[in-house]
């Protein structure tokens, strides 16, 4: 009967309870969407960084990590790559010669990182070649092809077949350079990456730098989950071939900012949820205070006819839990439906995409909220509802039955 009584009491003032439930539904909807949006944005940044830039693991000479100079090459990079390709679960291993330099056209010039790659292996590691929007990836034949980004192409006023001059230091420390022709324009989700990188054939770069060796080995696994379990094997092979001069880093170490974002995602989500739940808690306290105080005399009657303090407390707690539970459940269900729809159809971020693109965020996001987050939110809502009922209950239980009965309402 107490459960029935509590449920009917919640809906005694339908307007007030409905307003509270509606506030919770809209509030939760906002929180769920925000959590889903932030989750999607972070995941998009990480996914794109892995897909177009870092792959899963990279191997460098530790000196290269301190100063990215030509002389800091990785010993045995090609042998290392061959051994790594034999590993189970490896999707691709690319070897790159990397050098900072300048790209100049008739119109302008800019500083870039020149990536000397073997396209046949590169396509297994990153999706840069798949992001070609005009022209083609670096062909195996032909003289000095170069892949530049669409953005750089616009700034340098380039077309397919346009000539650019790449300038860099050679192995003797002398300025070297050569003319390259644009074979294709790539366009990855990260405008920052696009503006800072050009791709040429490694064989061409070797020719002009005079350095046979490479600077980085990039590894991509077919499954990005449980990368840590591959690490010991990767480090074993790198150690065997390169000795002390091969440092293995996963994507998180290559892009520490992204890893930190991923790490703090749960915390930032939790802060958002806690702020909402606290605000909701005050709302429930308010509703419960009104609801309980306007029934002071009724509680006096209940205590007079033999309802114990524990049962009165139970009744008030139950009412609060029911109110919070209904609002929370409705809000989370509606939120879940909306997240499922936007998660399938995608959520265009419109004008914001331009700015967010620098960080590698896609123009369309697919919000996602883990089930565990919904469960945590529901648990927090119920806990807050419970806590919110204690103060009104205490105020009632402090009164003697005769005092409660003397109240007008």
């Amino acid at each position, binding site marked *: 009967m107490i459960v029935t009584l509590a449920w009917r*009491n919640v809906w005694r003032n339908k307007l007030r309870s409905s307003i509270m439930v509606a506030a919770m539904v809209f509030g939760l909807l906002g929180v769920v969407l925000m959590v889903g949006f932030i989750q999607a944005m972070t995941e998009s940044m990480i996914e794109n960084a892995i897909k177009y830039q870092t792959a899963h693991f990279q191997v460098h000479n530790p000196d290269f990590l301190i100063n990215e100079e030509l002389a800091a090459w990785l010993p045995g990079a090609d042998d290392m790559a061959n051994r790594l390709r034999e590993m189970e679960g490896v999707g691709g291993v690319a070897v790159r010669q990397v050098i900072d330099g300048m790209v100049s056209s008739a119109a302008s010039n800019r500083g870039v990182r020149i990536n000397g790659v073997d396209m046949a292996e590169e396509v297994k590691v990153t999706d840069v070649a798949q992001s070609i929007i005009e022209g083609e990836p670096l062909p195996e034949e032909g003289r000095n092809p170069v892949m530049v980004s669409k953005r750089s192409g616009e700034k340098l006023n380039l077309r397919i077949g346009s000539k650019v001059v790449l300038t860099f230091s050679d192995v003797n420390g002398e300025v070297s350079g050569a003319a390259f022709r644009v074979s294709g324009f790539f366009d990855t989700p990260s405008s920052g990456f696009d503006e800072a990188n050009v791709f040429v054939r490694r064989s061409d770069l070797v020719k002009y730098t005079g350095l046979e060796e490479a600077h980085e080995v990039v590894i991509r696994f077919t499954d990005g989950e449980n990368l840590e379990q591959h690490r010991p094997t990767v480090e074993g092979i790198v150690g065997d071939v390169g000795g002390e001069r091969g440092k293995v880093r996963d994507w998180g170490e290559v892009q520490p900012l992204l890893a930190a974002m991923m790490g703090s995602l749960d915390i930032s989500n939790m802060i958002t949820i806690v702020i909402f739940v606290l605000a909701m808690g005050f709302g429930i306290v308010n509703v419960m205070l009104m609801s309980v105080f306007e029934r002071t005399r009724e509680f006096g009657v209940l205590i007079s006819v033999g309802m114990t303090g524990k049962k009165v407390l139970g009744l008030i707690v139950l009412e609060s839990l029911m109110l919070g539970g209904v609002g929370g459940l409705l809000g989370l269900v509606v939120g879940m439906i909306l997240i499922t729809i936007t998660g399938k159809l995608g959520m265009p971020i419109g004008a914001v995409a331009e700015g967010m693109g620098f960080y590698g965020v896609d123009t369309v996001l697919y919000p996602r909220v883990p089930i565990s987050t919904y469960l945590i939110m529901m648990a927090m809502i119920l806990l807050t509802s419970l806590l919110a009922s204690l103060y009104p209950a205490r105020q009632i239980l402090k009164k003697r039955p005769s005092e409660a009965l003397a109240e007008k309402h």
Partner: protein
Amino acid sequence: MTIQIERLTKIYNPDTDFPITAVGDVTVEIGQGEFVAVMGPSGSGKTTLLNMLGGIDRPTSGRVLIDGEDITALEDKELIGFRRDNIGFIFQDFSLLPVLTAKENVEFVMQLQGRSQRECEARAMELLTEVGLGDRADNVPGKLSGGQQQRVAVARALAPKPRFVLADEPTANLDAATTRGLLDIMQRLNEKEGTTFIFSTHDPRVIGRARRVIVFEDGKITEDRVQGEDRTE
């Protein structure tokens, strides 16, 4: 069952410069099956006396003994149990739970006693039929008239089979015909169930039906008479 009130006193704000004596040094005894009216003007202390008698207020001094058990010495928790099992309450404003039906209101107090649902339902229907509301058992109080609500309150008060019923001005909000009907029911149940009824009132219609009248003025008993027989203190 005997109710003995011994030198019962209630003083509000006792430690201030303006203490108010609501009940002052009252001694009286009420026996099994009595139908007693405590009459007096507003503010005379009737409700305070009934509250202390029902264990919902504590006296400043004095004792209330029910069959020799001093209820003023009971802890709050014990007192709640005592009230639940031994005392029925009827309030001036009916004080039914508006979200429960008439039947549920009557069942509720029995459920607090831990009785089975079947027993609660059977007794609730028996009492509602007794007060003439068997056909309105599923109506919520809002759908009942004032008189009908007070009849449900009478059924609720009697449901836990109390040793006595305290009614605080039960007819104050009722018209003459309804009052007459309610008194008939209370009197009949008093005789049938042997339950003692004590009610505060200043309604002459009620006083006329009481077998014993205790007149209360300024917190003191000024007259205690069995109708037709004078026992003035």
